[in-house]
């Protein structure tokens, strides 16, 4: 009896991957648990095991094939109930462990994978040298390059966190750093957020430039005392004597189907704290330029990334000197009729909405805040003065949100420019559910943003 072996989904959102290497060939007998192949996603290389015993009948997809869709038949297994178990040992010898990939990533458990969605790209950054050479890279690569460049330039810079070194980063953001900088500067910590956030903060007080990675900001709740009480307030409490140039970074916000405790946007929490700089970039060029600025900053920075954006590709200026100034918003799409203010993953969704609205004759200006504290009030008010209508789109809860803050600003300082009440489009005011349909219903999307825009434009 023949069984089809299909390209596996290594995470809930993986859609395709590269079949890096076959570890068996046609005619090999395999037992359950034998490693058949290595499959690479943009996050990790993983080994794919046989679940049945039998003989490899035919290999349908040769090794090295890229973009193999999940579910594609990659081989056929001929069933052979009586002989297979006895041959299992021999089969293993054919794939000696020495040939297995050295990367610790090979043992990576499945992590939520990024869907490669085709989002409308933002306009080139005003900060980018116009006409300069660029290269296409993912947000993940841009963040890694930012850290590597700053580590090369300044020996005080080091990175610490869970799985940042040997594992190459739980989300592969620190990939390759251990190899280049060694284990004195790329430091695996125990699972002990409160403790290592405190050690990172203390090291900054002692004159170093730590980058503290949280596997996700959900876990930073255990460490928030050091971020708020130790890092943010020390400069003020010491009358300007003691600095704390630390960067706390990691993914923030909803990922994909990971449930309420792993899906939360902490931007409004940190942005409410004087003494912190809070950055939440969207594109790879901003991610790189702002992370470099954050590492160079004398102030403590909370740098909020987004797991779903890690795999998206953007044009990034080449060279080591691409710095994006902290505290400056970016007009990612110009428009005359309405302003959509947003940040992080909300930028992609807002651009999608703006594209749809353009078909209806509404030209939306999209502003990526990029830095949430200090907030670029001038940019928000200037755009409001131009369009007189505003929607704030935020992948996060509505109550006491960045959206609330932007709306308050428009009331206090832009009231005379308003032709309609400012509306906010945020996630539903509930813990994020697991079920696919409920999760989708809870999160912001382009349709909701477009609907709010029509309302403030009185087009409904």
């Amino acid at each position, binding site marked *: 009896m023949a069984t089809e072996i299909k390209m596996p989904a290594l995470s809930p959102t993986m859609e395709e991957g590269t079949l890096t290497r076959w570890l068996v060939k046609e005619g090999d007998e395999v037992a359950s648990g034998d490693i058949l192949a290595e499959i690479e996603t943009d996050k990790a290389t993983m080994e794919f095991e046989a679940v049945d015993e039998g003989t490899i009948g035919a290999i349908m997809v040769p090794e090295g094939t890229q973009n193999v869709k999940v579910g594609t038949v990659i081989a056929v297994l001929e069933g052979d109930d009586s002989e297979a178990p006895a041959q299992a040992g021999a089969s293993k010898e054919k794939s000696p462990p020495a040939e297995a990939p050295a990367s610790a990533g090979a043992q990576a458990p499945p992590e939520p994978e990024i869907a490669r969605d085709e989002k409308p790209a933002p306009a080139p950054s005003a900060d980018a040298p116009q006409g300069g050479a660029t290269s296409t890279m993912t947000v993940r690569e841009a963040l890694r390059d930012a850290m590597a460049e700053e580590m090369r330039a300044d020996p005080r810079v080091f990175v610490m966190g869970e799985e940042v070194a040997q594992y190459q980063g739980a989300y592969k953001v620190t990939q390759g750093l251990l190899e280049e900088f060694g284990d004195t500067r790329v430091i695996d910590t125990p699972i002990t957020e409160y403790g290592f956030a405190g050690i990172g903060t*203390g*090291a900054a007080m002692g004159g170093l430039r730590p980058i503290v990675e949280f596997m996700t900001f959900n876990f930073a709740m255990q460490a928030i005392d*050091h971020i708020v009480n*130790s890092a943010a307030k020390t400069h003020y*409490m010491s009358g300007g*004597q003691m600095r704390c140039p630390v960067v706390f970074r990691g993914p923030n916000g909803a990922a994909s189907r990971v449930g309420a405790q792993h899906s939360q946007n902490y931007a409004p929490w940190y942005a409410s704290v004087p003494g912190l700089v809070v950055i939440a970039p969207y594109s790879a060029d901003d991610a790189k330029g702002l992370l470099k600025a954050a590492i160079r900053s004398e102030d403590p920075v909370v740098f909020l990334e987004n797991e779903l954006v890690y795999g998206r590709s953007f044009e990034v200026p080449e060279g080591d000197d691409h710095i994006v100034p902290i505290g400056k918003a970016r007009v990612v799409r110009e428009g005359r009729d309405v302003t959509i203010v947003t940040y992080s993953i909300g930028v992609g969704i807002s651009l999608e909405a703006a594209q749809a609205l353009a078909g209806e004759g509404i030209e939306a200006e999209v502003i990526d805040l990029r830095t949430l504290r200090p907030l670029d009030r001038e940019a928000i008010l200037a755009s409001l003065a131009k369009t007189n209508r505003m929607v704030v789109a935020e992948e996060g809860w509505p109550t006491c949100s960045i959206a609330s803050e932007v709306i308050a600003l428009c009331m206090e300082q832009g009231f005379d420019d308003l032709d309609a009440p400012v509306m906010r489009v945020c996630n539903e005011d509930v813990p994020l559910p697991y079920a696919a349909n409920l999760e989708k219903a809870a999160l912001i999307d382009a349709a909701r943003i477009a609907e709010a825009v029509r309302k403030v434009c009185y087009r409904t």
Partner: protein
Amino acid sequence: MPRAAQPKSAKPKQAEAEAASDPDFELRSLQTAHAKSPRYKATRDELIGFYEQMLLIRRFEEKAGQLYGLGLIGGFCHLYIGQEAVAVGLQSALDQERDSVITGYRDHGHMLAYGLDPKIIMAELTGRQAGISKGKGGSMHMFSTEKRFYGGHGIVGAQVPLGAGLAFAHKYRGDGGVCIAYFGDGAANQGQVYETFNMASLWKLPIIFVVEDNQYAMGTASKRSSAETHFHRRGTAFRIPGMDVNGMDVLEVRQAAELALAHVRGGNGPVLMELNTYRYRGHSMSDPAKYRTRAEVDDVREHNDPIERAKKELIELGESEESLKALDKRIRGVVGEAADFAESSPEPELAELYTDVLVERG
């Protein structure tokens, strides 16, 4: 009866026997060495120096208590009276050119032991521009990066991982420095302390954890809050050697500090010292003191006071009563001047409200 007079490990003889057959005996090696020769052989001049520093702390704190009563000091104010030998004994063993210190909110004594000007400390207590934090920190939040004194932290236990971060920086730079992180018997029950023990030992950080066991976490006696009141044993699970030290004897503290420093400077990782001491005053100025008797406090004062002990030894060494009286008078003068300065200095300019929030923007 407080245990301060008697190091705890000296009590059960069977512990010694167990230690000998314990494969982890090296965790007790520092304590064993300390027990053999517990007291520092100070010269008369050195002992006068310690005495003077302890007396300065006591007089300073007494004055701070008075100023608090007059409404000149606000908020929380935690006095160090009774614990003076701990800060003085330990600080005296440090290399001030490279070692760093961090503590909690009971920090005035540590700063004075580090040689900081009493005027700018008192001016901080009264919230004046001339204070060490420009009046923006207060009693619990004082720092001197110049003296490598990193605070002054108001959240119980937070200074422990922060201290390990300072130690991490010493090791990273290879500057040979050691960090001393002080915390109380109350803070010793915070989870982050043990997260830090684990990493400090794992990474062999140059740090000395000093538990100042003053017997009470606010109003809760150690034995009512701690399953293991022998705090120096609490590093065992992390392979950190412990030392049980009489914190009411400045010479014993100094001797123990030298052993601990030599161990840490030798690249052997952290040491956990338990300093048994006693706080005469309340936890803070607003302490009703219902949790202990007056007799208990008086008993320590009478039989176990660190300053009286040093004074007695000085007299035995030939120091005259007159010269000690003159010294006391001089210190009262210094403290009086500090108080006058702190009272007469102007409050911060209103513009200070908005400075020092961020380094780069404001």
